[in-house]
């Protein structure tokens, strides 16, 4: 599909969210394009989690609207967001250690054949999906997830989203607690995901990772979106300034 003239996959228009006296999000306008990685950065308490949970349908915004494919949508729960094709991968990955890779990838969506689980179809699809994501270190898709490394577990979580026809994948700190090689693997995975036409939102504290994978960077500061622009318009210094002060003084970024 040609994503350039199709408009953004997801648009937030003037979204605000309050929790009692706390104004968590104020007037956020953000476009998430297809087939690109958008990094969401910001200091602690900037509203990153509130924003992704709003997109994931955990709660409705107090003001503003969410456009999916140009059409306004009301998300009444995570299920609504999932039905649209929005999958959120939280840090805990939500995998069952006792089940193998195939079983985890299809959990809740198992294909049936004559009333029983169609293991062969699942196994082939799981293998192909991992191959598409260029995950080569997993030796067998019948390994229990408990025996996988952190990066491999992340791959399974991403493949799980892909197999359920996700169009937007939100990843919360996907490289936290990973070693160097594992981080490399996950970053490649994120690129592969965007390469497949999927829109990706990545929350990360690690600017190395952000500059490595992001096509666009959006920065939140005290609940406001202070900048959203192509990653090429940022440098490390301006990114840090946006996060810590909400502006970039003698900044390079235009936006």
């Amino acid at each position: 599909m040609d994503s350039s003239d199709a408009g953004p996959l997801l648009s937030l228009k003037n979204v605000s969210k309050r929790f009692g006296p706390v104004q968590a999000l104020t007037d956020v306008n953000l476009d998430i394009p297809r087939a690109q990685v958008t990094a969401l950065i910001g200091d602690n308490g900037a509203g990153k989690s509130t924003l992704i949970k709003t997109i994931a349908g955990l709660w409705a915004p107090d003001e503003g609207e969410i456009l999916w494919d140009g059409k306004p949508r009301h998300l009444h729960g995570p299920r609504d967001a999932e039905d649209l094709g929005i999958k959120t991968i939280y840090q805990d990955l939500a995998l069952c250690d006792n089940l193998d890779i195939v079983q985890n990838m299809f959990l809740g969506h198992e294909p049936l054949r004559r009333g029983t689980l169609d293991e062969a179809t699942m196994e082939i699809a799981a293998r192909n999906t991992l191959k598409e994501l260029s995950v080569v270190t997993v030796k067998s898709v019948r390994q229990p997830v408990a025996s996988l490394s952190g990066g491999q577990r992340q791959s399974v979580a991403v493949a799980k989203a892909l197999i359920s026809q996700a169009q937007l994948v939100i990843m919360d700190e996907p490289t936290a607690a990973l070693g160097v090689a594992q981080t490399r693997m996950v970053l490649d995975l994120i690129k592969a995901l965007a390469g497949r036409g999927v829109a990706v939102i990545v929350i990360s504290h690690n600017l190395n990772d952000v500059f490595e994978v992001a096509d666009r960077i959006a920065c939140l500061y005290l609940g406001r979106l202070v900048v959203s622009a192509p990653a090429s318009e940022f440098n490390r210094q301006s990114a840090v300034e946006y996060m810590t002060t909400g502006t970039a003084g003698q900044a390079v970024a235009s936006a």
Partner: protein
Amino acid sequence: MATPQAPAPSDESSQSTLSDEELVTAAPEVLATSLREYLHAWAQKIRNGESGALPVIVGLILIIIFFRIERRVFLSDTNIVNILTGSTIYVMLGAAEIFILLLSEIDLSIGFGAGVGGLVIAELIASPVNLPWWLGIIGGMAVMAVFGALQGSLVSRLNLPSFVVTLGGQLALQGLLLVIANLDPTAVGGVIQIDPGSPIYKLVNGTMSPGLSWAMVIAAVALFGIASLVKNRARTARGLTAPPLGVTLISIAIAAIGGILLVVTANANTPSGIPWVFPFVVLVLVFYTWLLGRTRIGRYIYAVGANPEAARRAGINVRWIVTFAFIMSSVTACLAGVVYESNQGSMSIDINGGQLVLFAVATAVIGGTSLFGGRGRMFNALLGGIVISVVVNGLAVMGVGAAAQDIATAVVLLAAVTLDSLVRRRAAAH
């Protein structure tokens, strides 16, 4: 994190980063393609502490040798059949408990569940109701299904601890047992007889003819063999890995040898032939294995047991899964009640439900079901039930008193739980 530039901690990967070599040792058998690699992988697994049923089998053999040295009669044909027949009640109760242990919950009510289920059946098939035996069993199962649904709903909807709910359930069932017995004026002393002509009586006390015993075992082994081979061929045809032929043939051979030994022993016994309860229990276990392994609901039981939050996010109705498991547990307890009353020739309000439930937990755990949820198979109950039965029978043959029997069973249970805990710790250390 204090500063936005701080890199993500890279050394907190204690449980999550494994090298490729470690990965191979963590799950060697799924990577093996030849018989030799399989045996190698198996040996490696044992070295890693994932020995599966092996320590239990070794322990069982040692216990059998001990009893055989103490009393020659222990390994007579009659006593072997006695041990196996005696194990069936533990196997059924163990199977009931496995449904619940897989969820990392516990059901303390199943001992008296067997009592109430069995008593309802006994009342339904005796005068004045005089229902046919199969309707009686359906009636008992229906009553227990309602009870299981009630317990399951309390656990899953009100989030009450299953320990407390089923402890209450145990007391309630004990009371219900007395209520039902008091309703029936023919139940003298709270005992109601099972008609010796009834198929329920014959389940444990009746045997197949020696010829039928052979035919059934041969058919079962052949069915098992054909099913394994067909499944492997179907997988290979779709480009998937299947266990090498040698491994499949060895497992078929083991099944055949076990079957032959069983028939020879049972046919040498008087009355000769395999008791009907054996195929009954095996069929129940096969059905439950299919349910847990080949259906969505079975898979979701494992998922909920390991990570309820992940199951919920995958769109699984966790409450229904928990309720379903409690229904299955109670219904299976009712089937255990059938085995119990068949064995006794009667159902009595004196059924020791408190002890039976402890044997049920022991059966499941000795067989390899984890108390911590998500790990275990239905056929585990067979191994566990035989271990319990060997201990109970052996001590009885030696003429040891009831007190010593209880203590010995406690030791076996603690040993099994310790093993479970050690395996878990070792697996977590990987």
